Each structure stands twice: as structure tokens, then as C-alpha cells.
């Protein structure tokens, strides 16, 4: 697999063509990135299990630990693709699976120890929906969207899009893992939501594609992973939470609860994000993603609360606690991610580990691709 191409290995050639490789954040991610440079070979993973155990044992806060969250991001990335060149060969490598299990057990434990669950014991669909609406009521979230509507700066708004890009360029993918694991009404509801997320058959309307349009409008790089080195652990933890719930059938209740909370805390903030970008002078190419979600997620939250989470709880009452856990975990982690940005900006700092080079004015790519043209017709 490691062919030499004019003095470069294929991996180096890929790195040149697809941008810089990731930078490690500690002993564990150093070991993983080193292993991924090679074709599958046992000597490259020797010592991995010891490093994982030591990393978890010495970690203070698993949600905010750079080495843990970046390593989890890399390992989950093997299942999504677009993260590690040649990663397919590593996806089911026993050493990588073992490392992932140790990390995600610690991660799940950290989440379960930190969240506080609502005290509802009724698995009736209407009661579950009511509990979720109470849990996610607008005044209980962080004030990132209020900051956006009133005083966000151009650089902060751009940082926000960079932070969101880690998940949103793959928007909806983590929750799609649940589709074959649900039945009946809950499955139909999830597919109904996901079909809309994926554009209803029109690729230019896929939410991830609309978000890429926002990034282009801000002069940002839309290649997946281009900003991974820039974002803090908590931003990776936001995606890792969905991947943790998505890649284990056991946690399907938590994944459904996560999606419900995500959709139920979206419409009103997205209107403020859109208003913030308009106040900064950006046009529909940048605001379309946020405007789209005002309407879309007002639909999705009804489906997610009643037909997805409510129906799943009615169908499998034993999953009620995990549905509420997943919803609470979404609010916790995404709340911490928002708070991180607010704290950094209040202190006059960048919210990114590596600040963006310079504030870039709104700009269009020199040559609009077909996708962008397709979008502009719909604006």
C-alpha cells in the first residue's frame, strides 16, 4: 500500500493533495497518527493498549481532554471516512477497536456522571414529548445565539462556523446509524427527518451542502477536516457524543434522545444566527443555512419529540432513561461548546486552538461550481 511516487509515499502525496495532516495532541493521538501512516501491521499498534489505559487513567476531565477527544475523533472517523487516508483498512482492526472501547467507556462514564436527568418515569409518548420540551425550553440553553444577534464580530461569527463545521459538514450522518436499529413508527419518523436533512432527493438541498455554501461565503475551506487542528476538545466531544451513541446499538435510545434535543434547540437560535450574519452585512449565500433551519427544525422537533422519541419510549419503555440521558448529554456537551466560545470571546481571545489567519471579508470563489449555482437559484 505504501507505494513510492516520485520520492513521496502515497500517504504523503495524499496529504499534499488534501491539505496538511493532523497534529497530535498527546501520546495516544501521536501513536494513532503514526500507525495510520502504515499499512496494517501489528508492530505499529504494539503498546497501543498500554498508552490508552494510561491516557484514560491520567485524564482529569474526559469531555475536555484534547488527547482523548482527538483520538476518539480519529477512531470514529474510520467508520465515517474522509478523516484518515486509507482508513478503511483500519476500521475493524482489533487493536483500534480495543482502543476505542476503552476510550468510549470512559467517555460514556464521564457523560453519565455529569448529566442530571429529568425525573419523568412515564414512557407514554405524549409524556416523553412533554418532558423533552420542558428539558429543552428556550431559556435553559446557553446564550451564544443571543450574543450572535446583538454583538458578534465578523471574526467571532467565522470562528463559530469553523467550530460547527466539524459536525455540520457531516450533518445528520451520526443519527442515521440508528435507522436499521429502530422499527415501526420511530423508524418512519427518523427516516422522515433524515430525508429532509439529506435534501429530499436534491443533493444541493442537503443541509451539509447548504452549510458548505455558508463556509464558501465566508472564504473558508470546505474540505472535511480542514479545521480539526483548530478546534478545542469540547468541539470534537460534540461530534464524538453522537458517534458514541450512533455506533452502538445498545445506545440507540440515547441517540434518539440526542437528536430530539438537538432539533428542539435549533429553530430559535438559528434565527438569531441568521440575524447576526445579516447584521454583519452577509447575504443569502451565508445566511441560507440558518434560515433553512428555522423552518426545517420547527418541523423536525415535533416529529422527533412525538413520533421518534415518544414512540420509541412507548415501544421500548426500558429505553426511556437512555432517551433522557441522550437528550441531556446533547444539552450538556453543546452547552459547554457554546460556553467555551463565549468565555474565550469575553476574555478577548480566539475560541480556536489555532486562530484563523486574518478576518476575511465575504467573498465568492472565483469559479462558482454547479452546486453553488444550484443553490443560488433557490435563494
Amino acid at each position, binding site marked *: 500500500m505504501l507505494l513510492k511516487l516520485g520520492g513521496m509515499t502515497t500517504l504523503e502525496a495524499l496529504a499534499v493533495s488534501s491539505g496538511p495532516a493532523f497534529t497530535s495532541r498527546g501520546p495516544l493521538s501521536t501513536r494513532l497518527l503514526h500507525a495510520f501512516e502504515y499499512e496494517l501491521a501489528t508492530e505499529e499498534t504494539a503498546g497501543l493498549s498500554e498508552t490508552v489505559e494510561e491516557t484514560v487513567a491520567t485524564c482529569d476531565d474526559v469531555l475536555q481532554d484534547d488527547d482523548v477527544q482527538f483520538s476518539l475523533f480519529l477512531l470514529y472517523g474510520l467508520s465515517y471516512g474522509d478523516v484518515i487516508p486509507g482508513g478503511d483498512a483500519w476500521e475493524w482492526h482489533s487493536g483500534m477497536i480495543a482502543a476505542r472501547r476503552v476510550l468510549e467507556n470512559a467517555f460514556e462514564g464521564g457523560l453519565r456522571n455529569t448529566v442530571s436527568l429529568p425525573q419523568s418515569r412515564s414512557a*407514554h*409518548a*405524549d409524556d416523553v*414529548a*412533554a418532558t423533552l*420540551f420542558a428539558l429543552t*425550553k*428556550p431559556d435553559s440553553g446557553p446564550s451564544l445565539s443571543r450574543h450572535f444577534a446583538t454583538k458578534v464580530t465578523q471574526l467571532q461569527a467565522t470562528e463559530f462556523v469553523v467550530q460547527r463545521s466539524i459536525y455540520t459538514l457531516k450533518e445528520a450522518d451520526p443519527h442515521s446509524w440508528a435507522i436499521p436499529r429502530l*422499527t*415501526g*413508527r420511530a423508524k418512519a419518523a427518523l427516516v*422522515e427527518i433524515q*430525508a*429532509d436533512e439529506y435534501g*429530499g432527493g436534491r443533493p444541493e*438541498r442537503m443541509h451539509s451542502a447548504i452549510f458548505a455554501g455558508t463556509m464558501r461565503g465566508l472564504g473558508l475551506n470546505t474540505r472535511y477536516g480542514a479545521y480539526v487542528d483548530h478546534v478545542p476538545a469540547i468541539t470534537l466531544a460534540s461530534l464524538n457524543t453522537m458517534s458514541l451513541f450512533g455506533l452502538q446499538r445498545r445506545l440507540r435510545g440515547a441517540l434518539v434522545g440526542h437528536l430530539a434535543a438537538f432539533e428542539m434547540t*435549533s*429553530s*430559535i437560535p438559528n*434565527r438569531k444566527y441568521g440575524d447576526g450574519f445579516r447584521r454583519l452585512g452577509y447575504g443569502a449565500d451565508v445566511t441560507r443555512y440558518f434560515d*433553512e433551519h*428555522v*423552518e*426545517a*427544525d*420547527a*418541523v423536525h*422537533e*415535533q*416529529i422527533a419529540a*412525538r413520533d421518534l422519541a415518544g*414512540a420509541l419510549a*412507548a*415501544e421500548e419503555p426500558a429505553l426511556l432513561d437512555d432517551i433522557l440521558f441522550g437528550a441531556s448529554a446533547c444539552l450538556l456537551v453543546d452547552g459547554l461548546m457554546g460556553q467555551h466560545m463565549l468565555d474565550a470571546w469575553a476574555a478577548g481571545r480566539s475560541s480556536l486552538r489555532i486562530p484563523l489567519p486574518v478576518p476575511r471579508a465575504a467573498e465568492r470563489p472565483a469559479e462558482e461550481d454547479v452546486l453553488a449555482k444550484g443553490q443560488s437559484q433557490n435563494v
Partner: protein
Amino acid sequence: MSKAAEPGSASGSADWPIPGASVGHSLDPIIIACQNGPLLVRGSVELRTAEGEVIPQLRATIALCRCGVSSIKPFCDGTHKLINFQT
């Protein structure tokens, strides 16, 4: 497993009847009056303004405002939650 989860079940459960099953026209539009929320419309309907102009719909399932404060009427924007709209 309840009846609703059985593949091919046409009866549904008492809580979750299969929409349209009782009248045998499952592609007919269905309007669900969501508790403390909007009217959820599944299926093809034509929305028009009072002047008769067609209101474009961008998705298969839509939510119509019924609290009166949405900024994107006739569609719901979730604002009913801010005013504690009760149905």
C-alpha cells in the same frame, strides 16, 4: 413488540394508529394538531395566500403556525415555545 412495529401491520396500536389506514388512502394528506404546537401536515397539499398565489413548500412535511407569532407564517418557526402557547 407491539402491533405498530410489525412489518406490514395495517392496524397500528391504540396510541399510534397508522395514519390513513382506516380509510384506505394512505397518501391522502394528514394534519396532526401538535399539543402546544403547530399543525403538522404530512402529504401533498397546495398552500395559497388569500389572493390565491401558491406558497412554495420546500419539504415533504410542513408545520403551520397556529399561535400567531411566527416570523415565517404560514410556517412555524418554533416561537410558540417562547410565549408558552397552550392548545
